[in-house]
């Protein structure tokens, strides 16, 4: 079959690889209908997560049709249209039973890496390096889905493919940031990053009752898209002092909840942009926490910050003093998608949550390298490139 493979730093190519097969009785094979780029792929592409081998298939956010099931798959059968959660859960360990699916204790066949790096084993993720289990990604014609009863979700009639696609990752990740960040009716919420995840987080905050949501980015087309489709306020951080603007819009308090949807390659302005850029290039700092720092400083006293952007290791100049003295709550997680996907599909079916507009560029899998180039450099207003292997 054809698949989009990582070949080295900033090198992708479409290759012929062996078809996936059922390896465990609870597996299913899914014929991929659509698979989208995600900002977190750029960290793999850029070599910031050094557990990739040449030839690894990337991609983790997808929908498709089940074409084969193992003998112990009970909830699905061939022919079903499904969305698959990007994070793999076994469904029965303590973490999965408590809806903390990205902390699954049985879905990463290489548990020693994350155990060593972070002091605990985390879940497997499709197409997300050998640290996350070495699972093949979804930018391919077919993909093997382990523990299919728990990780594949039938898409209801009436939900469009391109809406359901984002129920795989962007929408549940955003929803988690708003819900676990503690958004309550009447809150003011600030969201750093107007990519797919940031926009879904902003929409989730509004649906959870936030009175005002303010999204921050630097790309005019993304700010305009967020204002139009999410219906929130926006700030361009290249022309505005974000902290001052947030104080002015919140009676001097700062936002109640701050959601960071940027991650380890955060950009910024001024001295810290140069400082973090140099340290990361020299591998003296793994992640650039520019948006996290700003969120901590901007947040109201006693407020909360949720980190949705992907970080892999250590950061420098972390404002622990502000965190402690302002009495802030800081949380983060890879998405616990299985907790939210059924609810999100319902919201999509009712028309309360729309995500298809994020798919600004749809193309064949053969155009994968071009799609990532557009996505990485935000060319032609690209927010998400979507690959359709069978179109």
């Amino acid at each position: 079959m054809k698949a989009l493979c990582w070949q080295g730093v900033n090198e992708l190519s479409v290759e012929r690889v062996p078809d996936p097969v059922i390896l465990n009785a609870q597996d299913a094979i899914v014929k991929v209908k659509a698979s989208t780029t995600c900002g977190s792929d750029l960290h793999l592409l850029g070599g910031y997560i050094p557990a990739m081998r040449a030839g690894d298939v990337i991609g983790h956010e997808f929908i498709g049709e089940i074409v084969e099931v193992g003998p112990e798959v009970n909830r699905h059968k061939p022919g079903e249209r499904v969305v698959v959660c990007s994070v793999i859960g076994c469904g029965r360990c303590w973490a999965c039973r408590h809806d903390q699916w990205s902390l699954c204790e049985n879905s990463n066949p290489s548990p020693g890496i994350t155990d060593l790096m972070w002091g605990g084993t985390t879940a497997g993720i499709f197409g997300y390096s050998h640290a996350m289990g070495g699972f093949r990604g979804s930018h391919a014609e077919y993909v093997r889905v382990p523990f299919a009863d728990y990780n594949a979700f039938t898409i209801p009639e009436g939900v469009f493919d391109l809406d359901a696609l984002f129920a795989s990752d962007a929408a549940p990740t955003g929803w988690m940031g708003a819900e676990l960040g503690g958004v309550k009716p009447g809150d003011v919420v600030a969201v750093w990053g107007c990519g797919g995840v940031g926009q879904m987080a902003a929409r989730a905050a509004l649906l959870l009752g936030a009175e005002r949501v303010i999204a921050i980015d630097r790309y005019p087309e993304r700010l305009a898209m967020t204002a139009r489709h999410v219906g929130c306020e926006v700030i361009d951080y290249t022309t505005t002092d974000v902290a001052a603007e947030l104080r002015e819009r919140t009676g001097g308090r700062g936002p109640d909840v701050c959601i960071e949807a940027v991650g380890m390659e955060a950009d910024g302005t001024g001295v810290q942009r140069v400082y973090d850029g140099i340290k990361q290039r020299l591998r003296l700092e793994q992640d650039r926490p520019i948006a996290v720092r700003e969120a901590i400083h901007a947040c109201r006293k006693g407020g909360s910050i949720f980190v949705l952007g992907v970080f892999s290791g250590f950061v420098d100049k972390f404002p622990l003093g502000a965190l402690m003295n302002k009495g802030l709550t800081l949380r983060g997680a890879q998405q616990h998608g299985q907790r939210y996907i059924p609810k999100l599909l319902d919201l999509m079916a009712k028309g309360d949550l729309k995500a298809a507009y994020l798919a600004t560029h749809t193309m064949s899998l053969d155009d994968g390298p071009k799609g990532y180039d557009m996505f990485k450099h935000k060319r032609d207003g690209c927010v998400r490139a979507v690959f359709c292997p069978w179109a």
Partner: protein
Amino acid sequence: MKRLVAGAVALAAAGLGAAWWAASRRRMPGAAKDPLASSRWLGITINRPPGEVAPDGHLPEPLARVDAEVRMNSAPGDRGTEIYARPRMRGEDSRTALRTALRETKSLLETGDVLRSDEEIGTTRTTLPGKVLDMALGRASEGGRL
């Protein structure tokens, strides 16, 4: 610049390998050496009650295969069963085998299976940075803090 970045990635992978080696010796870089490292109990918590973990006192198959002392008790907070084991034979290989047996026991009891990796039907090719990475990841399935 691409060559510089590729070199930096190779260095990062080498760093991961060094950290891995250090961990395989049961000692985190910079941490004090643990005088009990070779004799500590390896513990794991299984989300099943003790009666299901060892019915009639019989240990589950992966654990029964290894030569180890085993004890277990109910985990606090309705978290299932804590199993502790340590090999009768000294040496890191014995502890590695026991670590694998504990993980497989947990997965079998909780899910009925041990998940296999897609790496079994590989799509990758050999490269120099990949070889460094292979050294680092060679024991990824059997190492770790456990």
